[in-house]
């Protein structure tokens, strides 16, 4: 695999009287959230190590207060970390000067916020053009680029509106357009859709997936909503009390929870909708049953009718090219389908 775009090594963010000294005293040992709290420190991010790769969509999940926002703000250096190291495209983020940081944000990073963070006194167009204006692009060029972005998110015709005059979904589209205006390589989204009602949210997710197909960016996405995570994620990281409990493919998280907490977290998920044939298949043994192969990318839910109707104990699994890559044990799959896995 290529070099990670973002790489965190033992990142800490403590809130309290003197985090750096305290952290040095720990010598890399993690005493746990409660001990830290006894000592007067809130560990918003606790000993997080994580690599995020080019073009990957990483979704961060966790309960309220588990440190999701803080982790993302560490990655964008909106907050300074208390310990550890973060590299962005090989450069040490914590060592950047103010000017270098501004350069990085002007050229590489974009961020979308839960409550939009639009400037109330600027029109849609001027909001979207704001990052370009900050880096001194001339008025004509930045307006042209901003218009492109506005069209990309489907807000054409509203560019003269003020944020106040838009619905929540439309405001968030402005936020998305603004964060994309500088063509960032890395895109952070902190609960971008949770302020929206379910219908609009669904629509925005589709929109987002379309954009992602189009742009193929490296994305860190925070959400509270497991369905949302499942729709979007390449990998999901589950946080608790500032630490990452598990970071893996959605299917793995559901099928092989690393901790009890993760197991509880995913307990109510309809596993059949998450688990793909590929996650369950076994290597091809001697004889491949001679029936129509199923696709590795299909979820158990997609296969439900076939599993019920087809009585053969093993089904061949094929990849996108049609080559058989494994076999699916019917019982295993049925267990997942019926929720007794």
């Amino acid at each position, binding site marked *: 695999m290529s070099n990670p775009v973002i790489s965190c090594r033992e990142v800490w963010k403590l809130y309290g009287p003197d985090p750096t000294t305290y952290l040095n005293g720990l010598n890399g040992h993690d005493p746990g959230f409660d001990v830290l709290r006894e000592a007067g420190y809130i560990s918003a991010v606790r000993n997080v190590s994580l690599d995020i790769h080019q073009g990957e969509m990483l979704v961060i999940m966790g309960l309220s207060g588990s440190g999701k926002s803080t982790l993302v703000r560490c990655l964008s250096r*909106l907050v300074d970390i208390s310990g550890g190291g973060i590299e962005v495209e090989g450069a040490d983020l914590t060592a950047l000067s103010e000017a270098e940081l501004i350069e990085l944000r*002007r050229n590489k990073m*974009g961020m979308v916020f839960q409550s939009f*963070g639009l400037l109330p006194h600027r029109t849609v167009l001027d909001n979207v053009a704001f*990052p370009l204006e900050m880096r001194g692009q001339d008025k004509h060029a930045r307006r042209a680029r901003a218009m492109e972005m506005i069209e990309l998110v489907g807000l054409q015709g509203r560019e*003269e509106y*003020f944020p*106040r005059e838009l619905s929540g979904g439309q405001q968030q589209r402005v936020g998305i357009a603004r964060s994309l205006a500088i063509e960032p390589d890395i895109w952070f989204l902190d609960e971008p859709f949770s302020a929206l009602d379910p219908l609009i949210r669904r629509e925005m997710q589709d929109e987002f997936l379309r954009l992602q197909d189009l742009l193929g960016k490296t994305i860190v996405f925070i959400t509270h909503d497991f369905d949302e995570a499942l729709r979007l994620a390449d990998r999901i990281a589950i946080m608790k009390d500032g630490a990452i409990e598990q970071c893996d493919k959605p299917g793995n998280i559901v099928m092989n929870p690393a901790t009890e907490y993760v197991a509880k977290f995913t307990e109510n998920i309809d596993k059949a909708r998450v688990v793909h044939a590929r996650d369950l298949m076994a290597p091809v043994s001697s004889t491949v049953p001679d029936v129509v192969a199923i696709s590795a990318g299909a979820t158990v839910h997609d296969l439900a009718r076939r599993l019920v109707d087809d009585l053969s104990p093993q089904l061949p699994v094929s990849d996108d090219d049609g080559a058989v890559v494994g076999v699916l044990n019917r019982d295993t799959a049925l267990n997942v389908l019926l929720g007794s896995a």
Partner: protein
Amino acid sequence: MGAGSPPSISPGEESHKLWWWIALAAIVLAVLKPVAPDWLVRPPVWLVWPLADWINAVFTFMRDDLGLMHVTRAFADGVQWLLDVTANLLYGKRRWPRLEDPIPWTVIAATAFMVGYALRGWALGILSGGTFIWVALLGQWKWAMETLSVIIVAAPIAVLFGLVLGVLAWRSSRFELVLDPVLNLTQSLPHFAYMIPVVVFIGVGPKAGAIVTIIFAMPPMIRMSLLGLKKVSPEIIESGQMCGATSWQLLRYARIPSARNDILVGVNQVIMQSLAMVVLASFIGMPGLGQKLLQLLQALKMGRSVEIGITIVLLAVVLDRCSKAWAERQPEHFEKGTPWHQRNKLLLVWAVLVVGLWTLAEFWPLAQEIKRTQAFTISKQLDVILDGFIRLVDPVTLAIRAFLIRDVLIPMRDAYLWLPFTAVLAFVAAVGWRIGGRRSALTVSAFVLFIAMSGWWDRAMITAYMVSFAVLLAALVGLPLGIWAAGNERRAKVGLLICDTAQTFPSFIYLIPVVMLFGVNDVAAIGAVVVFAMVPLARYTIEGLRGVPETLIEAADMSGANKRQTLWKVRLPMALPTMMVGINQSIMFSLFMVIIAAFIGTQDLGQEMQRALSSTDVGKGLVLGMCVAFMGLAADHLAMRWAADKRRALGID
């Protein structure tokens, strides 16, 4: 109880006893007065420090040795230049820019109309345009323009300085820490305390009036900009940072524009403070409406005073409404492809009006200027009506006056003066302890001790008696009025509107009706204070009562409480903290008003302040000002502390 520990409504057993002991000491001191040694009765010589002399020494040093005089003079010259420009434009002073004539009154009235119309539609347009027509028709144009020309210069400068200081305070918490008590003090210093140093450094006249206005109007601007900057949502800032804004860009493009509404509320306050101060600055030779009013009042020319009073009130309302409308204005977009002349329709209409009226003025002098001889006046008719009215009520007012002076005011004043200062000190400490524990006791007694040390004890007691009597009277009238007004939605709305409007009037205005009714004496002064102090009392009573959560009232209804029980058992207790804010404001207002009312003859700190002003004695003026401020701050401390505890106990906010 410690400073940091959450305060309780009933302080601990220990301190509970202590405040009783202190109160007892106060009583004993008072009772034993006839046999008490002198130093317990009045501040002994060693306790009275020559504070005024020290301040004067510092000022002389700053003025002469530090050469601060040159700095202030240079600044004053800059202000003077600006004043010349506006004066020239508004009423013709033959300086730069050299116009043949000043701007015709019709053009200004039309401009006022357009501003009002653009901000809030026809009603405000007609109000503001009409105000200027009234001013012109009554031949008060020159005075009004003299007043406005100073506001036009002073208010923007105050806004600019206030904004800069607000930003600095926001950037440096250490600066904020220093600034906060200074602002507290400056916002409780009476108007006159500002005038004396200005007279020393600048002299008298419009220039001094403008500068004293700038200084006086600045504090609320600092407060509001600081508040606004702090309130900007963190996500807006973070989004700005992620857009790659430098910290200057963040301030310029994200923070200040996002704090727009609070900053504009600050601008509104600056304008209103400016108007109040400009009117009062007549005491230091500032020409204009205030000076005219002062002269007419002193000459007891009631009809003409009322005319000018109406003008000042109208101007206050127009300035307030327009600046508030501006603050509340939300941006609106134009449909795409709206042509330029559509987008700027109002601007074009205005330009056409200006050109048209200016041309008209060339041919028809009345559109340029209405001379006093041509002016229309209602003062004769007013005088007749007022005379009739006064003759009608004279027996009543005379009786009230005689009764008040003989049976209430003089005995009350004597009682206040009779009290040993140590008894007062102990009493204040006891109240402080009861309300806020040791810290509050120390704070308020320090304030009172300063007054004892200033050497103005007797004068201060006279001020205190006037204020306490006035606030009591204001509460007796204002609270029931407020409770009545809060009875239903419509009355409450009207009540709040009246109070809010009345609060915009410069304090000076309140003297007109009372002088009319009672003449020039203590009763008139107290009458003015009572009316002025009633406004915040009624206002916050309405607000507090209307603010009680509906669910609580429904719960009371469901418990079978009748209207009276609901009022006494639910609504009033819940509203009490808010009402306390009103009482607090009312005390502050009374203090200011008592000082202003000094020129119609009282013997309190205000009278001494006026003397200090006429002899330009900075030290004396500031010491007197601080005495007033400290009385206000002590009351403020106790009221706010009490209200905060009460709020917490009730689980509000």
